[in-house]
């Protein structure tokens, strides 16, 4: 809600910050030329690579409120005979925006289930989840187990937490690395005088200002920034607020999940150190941890060949082979 009526105040000849396509790109709701699918009353930005009849590699991006653009190096797995699926989660990336009140974890879990069904109702699949995406994959597995025997494994890269208690500790480590008198944070605060997050476009733009270089604990390569389509500020705020107010525990049913899970972590990441990943991995009956030494949190973008080599080795170990089934 705006306090002042925008038409009255907008200056003639000026651009409108809230119009999609000005500060941030249009979503699939505004640009029909973008690749998209429709599930559960929303339009999701999505694209796939490889044979549609092949086993699925379901890629889950981070955030919440980020997108899949920096994970696109994983499309190389299509050359191994997999159907690699990328999609921007509800309310972020180039997917349709919604009133955040209409979004919660149940909606997100149903979205993921319907995205799987959209691409195949029978093919086996493996999740590759990065950061929040690894948490999302775990929430789904906790809810649906191996999903009628179809989920053959998961590669979880730098998940932050599987419970609200772990999340609080993770956020403390993440924010603890931020210099509260430093330029990055103060630039973001200062920008609050110039643009107000009165709509999705402006809110997403402001979040990009905070997120583009990440936190110091993530150790991003400043000379090779991970690309992104568009941040999703409202959904990020909504899901974090719900996690804080309602709590969560996504470990309650993991003991029943028999496939081996690979925790493929970044060695430089200070917010998700080895001990924390060991604690999370212990929630699964069968899990292996591999550390990519010298890699930061954006390891898929920064070190794609090494990441893909680990992914391929894992697929071979669990017997998840490509090619039409």
């Amino acid at each position: 809600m705006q306090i002042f009526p925008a038409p009255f105040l907008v200056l003639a000849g000026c651009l409108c910050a809230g119009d999609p396509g000005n500060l941030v790109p249009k979503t699939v709701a505004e640009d029909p030329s973008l690749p998209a699918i429709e599930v559960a009353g929303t339009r999701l930005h999505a694209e796939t690579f490889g044979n549609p009849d092949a086993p699925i590699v379901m890629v889950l991006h981070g955030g919440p409120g980020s997108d899949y653009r920096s994970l696109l190096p994983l499309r190389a797995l299509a050359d191994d005979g997999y159907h690699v699926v990328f999609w921007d989660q509800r309310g972020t990336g180039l997917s349709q925006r919604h009133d955040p009140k209409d979004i919660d974890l149940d909606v997100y879990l149903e979205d993921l289930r319907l995205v799987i069904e959209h691409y195949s109702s029978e093919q086996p699949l493996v999740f590759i989840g990065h950061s929040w995406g690894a948490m999302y994959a775990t929430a789904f597995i906790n809810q649906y187990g191996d999903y009628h025997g179809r989920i053959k494994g998961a590669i979880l890269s730098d998940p932050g937490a599987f419970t609200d208690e772990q999340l609080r500790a993770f956020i403390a480590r993440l924010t603890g690395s931020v210099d509260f008198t430093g330029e990055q944070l103060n630039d973001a605060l200062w920008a609050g005088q110039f643009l107000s997050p009165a709509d999705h476009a402006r809110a997403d733009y402001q979040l990009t200002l905070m997120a583009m270089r990440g936190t110091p604990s993530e150790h991003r390569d400043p000379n090779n920034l991970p690309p992104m389509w568009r941040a999703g500020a409202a959904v990020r705020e909504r899901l974090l607020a719900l996690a804080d107010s309602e709590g969560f525990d996504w470990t309650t049913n993991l003991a029943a999940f028999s496939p081996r899970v690979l925790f493929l972590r970044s060695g430089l990441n200070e917010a998700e150190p080895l001990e924390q990943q060991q604690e999370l991995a212990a929630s699964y009956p069968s899990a292996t941890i591999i550390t990519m030494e010298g890699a930061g949190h954006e390891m898929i973008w920064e070190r794609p060949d090494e990441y893909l080599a680990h992914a391929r080795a894992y697929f071979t170990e669990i017997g998840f082979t490509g090619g039409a089934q």
Partner: protein
Amino acid sequence: MKAAILLALGLSLTPLAAHAQDINFGALEERANLVTVSTGLEYGFVFGAGYARALSRDMVLGGDVTLGWAEADLGDFRLRAGGQARLFGRDRWHLIGGLAATVRGTRNDISQMINIGTDAVVLAGYYAPHWFVAGELGFDWALATHVTHDEDYRMAVYADARDGWYGNAGGNLRYGLQGGVSLSRYDVILRAGRLLDVSGNAPMMPIYGTLSVGARF
């Protein structure tokens, strides 16, 4: 250079006079000059300096400059010029109104922005010669913001981002308290309160608080 021209243009459009929000009207003398230095938290960690002149005991004109002190970043600045006037008063109870033109700039990871706006404030309180306390209600409106996107943003996020003037880009309502003591020719004034943006939500930094020290001569 372009930013400097915009800045000069913005300043030339405003009356060269006053906004000093940190004034004890109870200690004000006609024709007095006021200089202030301030620091605190207001959209980040800031420090500033201001000058004002009292045209009468009821009206002050002046201006101030504020910079972020995170890393002595000259790219983040705010200039204000305007005035405050006593609108109503009985004994030591006064209602004061103020209006200022604002020009501010920032350079960050995704863009360079120059903004022209206005800041309106109403103060109501008790003003004695040696101390005062007042409620503060203000609205800082970002009338128009010129955005020039950084190459990193175009490379990593959105190549077709549009540079130019954005109208009605935002604004923040503030409400809080201010109070101070005046000893001899010096004032020490504290302001603190909360912020709400135009959508009614708290911005990323939802509070403000400044300490200023002023001298009258």
